[in-house]
Structures are given as structure tokens and as C-alpha cells.
């Protein structure tokens, strides 16, 4: 595309700023900017405006995550696993919409696992069904976070090519969502509790 005029380029300045243009489009816009000083001024202004508004209010990610409902497959009765290094926050979370409910026994089991050095757990008590409790160690939790970061999921993807993104999608699909080791079935304990 080489017929970009100044008005078109002006419209695309925010996209240039955010790295949302293809390589070819970016080159076209930059070429127009070089020939139009006013566009360069506008781009500089946009950069300054962006920088002046870039500060993010403090938000507690773990609190948000703790309030989320369980993933779809888990609501259907599958294994639930969440990762968090702060059980206190999990216990103190607000009453979330459709969040998984932990039985008293499951809370106790989770606390024991945390006290024993495990990172967390997660559970969903379903009446008359098995209560799956998945645990991962802190090391496994850290490795998981690192793998997500390495996949680029927690970072800007502006520098990724389409091929890299396709590979990334394949990597995501290949991720193992189920822990390698499952604890013993706790069905009897739950039923015995009358959950």
C-alpha cells in the first residue's frame, strides 16, 4: 500500500503509537510523516499524551482472580486448579458470582497443604460427587508463571510475527491443564461431611 495520504496517515498515528500496524503499513505511515512535519508534531504530541496517562491505578490481581468463577470445564465437574501463593487473600475474597464453593473439609485440607509447603489448591465441592483436589508446588507454580511469560501471554505481543503467534497458539493448546499427580479421592470424606 503506497497511496497513503496525510489524512490517512493522521488517522493511523495512534495505531503506529501502539504498534498495531503491519510492517508494510508502518513503513507507509512513517514515509508520509517524514514528508509532513505537522504529522511528526502530532505523533510527538500523542506520545506525550500517552505517557502522561500511562500510569495505572493500583490493582490487586490476586483479588480479582480469587473472585472469578471456575473455568467452564471445572463447573461441569472436572478438576479445579488455581494457583495463588496467598491463601489469606483466597479466604478473604469477596463473595464472587458463581464462584466455586469450598467445603469446610476442603478448606482444612487446603490449609494443611499450604502449611505443608504446598502452594495451593482448589476445589469444588459437589454434592454426591467426587471432590477433586489438585495441588501444585510453589516451584511448579513459578514454572507455570514463567512458561506463560515465555509464551508472551503476559507481555506485549507487538513484536511477534504471525508465524510466531501461530506457534504460540499451538503451544497454548499443548499446555497440560491437569497436574501430573492427583491426590486420593475424597468422595467419602465429603459425603461423610454431608456436603
Amino acid at each position: 500500500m503506497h497511496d497513503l495520504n496525510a489524512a490517512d496517515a493522521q488517522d493511523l498515528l495512534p495505531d503506529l503509537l501502539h504498534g498495531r500496524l503491519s510492517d508494510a503499513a508502518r513503513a507507509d505511515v512513517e514515509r508520509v510523516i517524514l514528508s509532513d512535519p505537522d504529522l511528526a508534531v502530532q505523533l510527538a504530541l500523542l506520545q506525550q499524551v500517552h505517557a502522561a496517562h500511562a500510569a495505572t491505578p493500583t490493582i490487586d490481581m490476586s483479588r480479582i482472580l480469587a473472585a472469578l468463577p471456575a473455568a467452564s470445564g471445572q463447573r461441569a465437574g472436572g478438576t479445579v486448579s488455581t494457583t495463588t501463593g496467598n491463601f489469606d487473600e483466597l479466604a478473604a475474597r469477596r463473595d464472587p458470582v458463581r464462584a466455586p464453593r469450598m467445603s469446610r473439609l476442603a478448606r482444612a485440607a487446603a490449609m494443611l497443604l499450604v502449611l505443608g509447603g504446598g502452594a495451593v489448591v482448589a476445589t469444588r465441592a459437589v454434592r454426591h460427587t467426587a471432590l477433586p483436589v489438585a495441588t501444585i508446588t510453589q516451584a511448579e507454580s513459578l514454572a507455570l508463571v514463567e512458561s506463560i511469560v515465555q509464551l508472551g501471554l503476559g507481555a506485549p505481543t507487538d513484536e511477534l510475527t504471525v508465524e510466531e503467534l501461530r506457534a504460540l497458539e499451538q503451544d497454548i493448546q499443548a499446555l497440560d491443564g491437569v497436574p501430573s499427580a492427583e491426590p486420593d479421592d475424597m468422595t467419602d470424606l465429603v459425603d461423610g461431611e454431608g456436603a
Partner: protein
Amino acid sequence: MTDLMRAGDDAAIDRALIARWNGGDQRAASALVERHAPSLARFVASLGVADAPEEIVQDTFVKAFGSLDAFRGESSLRAWLFTIARRLVLDQRRSAHRMRRHVPLENVHAELVAADDVLDGVVANESAARLRDAVARLSATQREVFTLRVVEGLSYKEIAIVADTTEGAARVHYHNAMRSVRTYLDA
């Protein structure tokens, strides 16, 4: 215009994460929250929610994840999340109005100044304050469109969805806002 954009890359990652979450992988939720929570918080603050933008952000994700398995991807996840957040802010304002604690729209500028005070520790220099002031003086619609376009990088199509307007109107609001900001800064 889509051939110009690589914004679809982000949408592809979101779709992959949603698929993982729908498949039962809770870890995908963490990635989605980390990808979108900061920009949502900035957007909510820009709408004048100075006291507790985190509450709105949290409620946005709770609502979104509550119906994420029904998300058909007709708009980007980002636009969908921003739309939910905007509605929650409007609901909050209506509720405040009913409780006679509503802040008149004419005072939104004052609200923004208060919100900016929170951020002053991070962006404290005079020129940045002047830039923020220039944006704060825009009309509510212009400010919303300009913020979504410049600060968050949304496309006109996404802005139209979030702000419940048309792409053409969003484009006009953006350019009018740009003109107003330049006029203020040149004065």
C-alpha cells in the same frame, strides 16, 4: 483497513486463552486478567472513578467470566471488557444519583483532577500535568474516545462498540478532540 493492522494478533491470543479456559484451564484466566486489567483500570479511572477503580475492574472480570463460554468473538475481547466496564461505571453513577450523591456531569472535570492526584506521584512534571489537563477539559464523549484511541490504542470499530456509537462518529470525536488539545496546548 484490516490488512493494515496486526491488532488481530492480540485477538488471536485472547481467543486461544478463552478456548483454554472454556476447556477447564483456570490458568488461562490469570493470563487474561494480566493482559487486560491494567488498561481497564486506566480506562475506568479516566471515566472519573477515582475512589475504587479496582472494584469496577474486578466486577468487570466477574461479569465477563460468568458468560465467557458464550462469548462468540464478534467483537474483540478487549472491546467487550471495556463495554462491560463502561456500563458498570454508568450503573454506579445512576445508583449514586438515586442516593443523591451523584456528581453532576459538569463536575466531571473536578473528578478527573482528583483522579489525577492519585497518579501525580508517578507523573509529576508540569508538562504532563498540562497534557492531562488538556484532555480533562474535553467534553465527556471526546475525552472517552480520545482516551480509548490514544491511551489504550483501540480501533475506531472497537471504540464504536464500547462507546455505543458509530465508527464515523468516533473518528469525528477523535479529530475534534485532537484539535482541542492542540489549541489548548498552543494557547
